[in-house]
């Protein structure tokens, strides 16, 4: 096994192990962990078998195999950031609604409390 093979395998293993630990310790929601599980398996596969990119590149008629991984990685990063922005928009919307409804309920609770006090005084 050549030195670069060992280095890529170690890097792939570290990345995959890190992601698995985060999933096991519940730092990632199960839905997000699916995505990262997929990334961890990819990193492990390409790290342990760097020739995999050569095989895939020749099947897809890509002249320079390393660029295939870079292009795929860029597409995945782009997709992930787009999904994250959609999620952020949804979260912002939910947060605004929560703030509005909690504020209304807080005011109504204060009103009810003062009404109860007035009734008790009578």
């Amino acid at each position: 096994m050549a030195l670069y093979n060992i280095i890529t395998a170690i890097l792939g293993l570290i990345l995959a192990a890190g992601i698995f630990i985060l999933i096991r310790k519940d730092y990632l929601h199960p839905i997000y962990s699916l995505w990262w599980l997929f990334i961890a398996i990819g990193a492990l596969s390409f790290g342990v078998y760097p020739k995999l990119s050569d095989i895939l590149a020749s099947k897809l008629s890509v002249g320079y195999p390393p660029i295939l991984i870079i292009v795929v990685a860029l597409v995945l990063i782009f997709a992930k950031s787009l999904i994250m922005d959609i999620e952020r928009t949804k979260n912002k919307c939910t947060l605004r609604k929560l703030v509005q409804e909690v504020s209304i309920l807080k005011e109504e609770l204060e009103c009810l409390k003062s009404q109860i006090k007035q009734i008790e005084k009578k």
Partner: protein
Amino acid sequence: MKKFDKNNKILVVIPARNEEKTIDKVVEEIRNLDLPVLVVDDGSSDGTATVARMAGAEVISLVHPLGTWGALQTGFRFAMWHNYHVVVTVDADGQHSPIYLEKLLEPVISNTVDVTIGMYPERLSKARKAALFVFRYLAGINYYDLTSGMRVYGPRAIKLLSSEQATTIDYQDIGILLLILNNGLNIKEIPVTMNNRTHGKSRLFNSWFAVCKYIFYSLLLSIGKRKILTFNQSKEK
């Protein structure tokens, strides 16, 4: 001044942030018309909430600041919960005189239109007029005072504006008008006059960053949410 029929279930919503110097007069003037007033305090650091309450308004203090539209939408949600049929919005800085409310309320109460806007484009600077001209052209709408906060909303508009669809919007102007028009509701502008602001400064245009953010946001909305024409409307054109 004419007092309004309580059967119409009208609620006046005033979004306010650090307006303790003017809010009492605004609330008192509207309370004199026998209308209930809801002040939505958008994270004031002064005594706005206390002053408004003393003047006779019900006050909702937002647990986290949401900006003018977020504060107004709280009022719409409150109106939905309490079955109000009409919501009137006015600014807390005293620019809007309640003498025009009757004129603005009449078409909404009689169900002729869904929304009326108090129009006074004379108050706008040349730069703001030019910017609004561009937004109007891009958005394909023919209303002149897009930033006026003096408006009256009927039941259909209240339902629409308290929905989640309206929660993603950041400002009360173009985004809200396009949402209303794209949902088949109608808007009428009614000429009014407005007073000059005596205290504080506009929240919308309080820094160059805020101005740039507003322009960029409005441009995007004008293009992206341009009034959708139905097949018949486009044929008529």
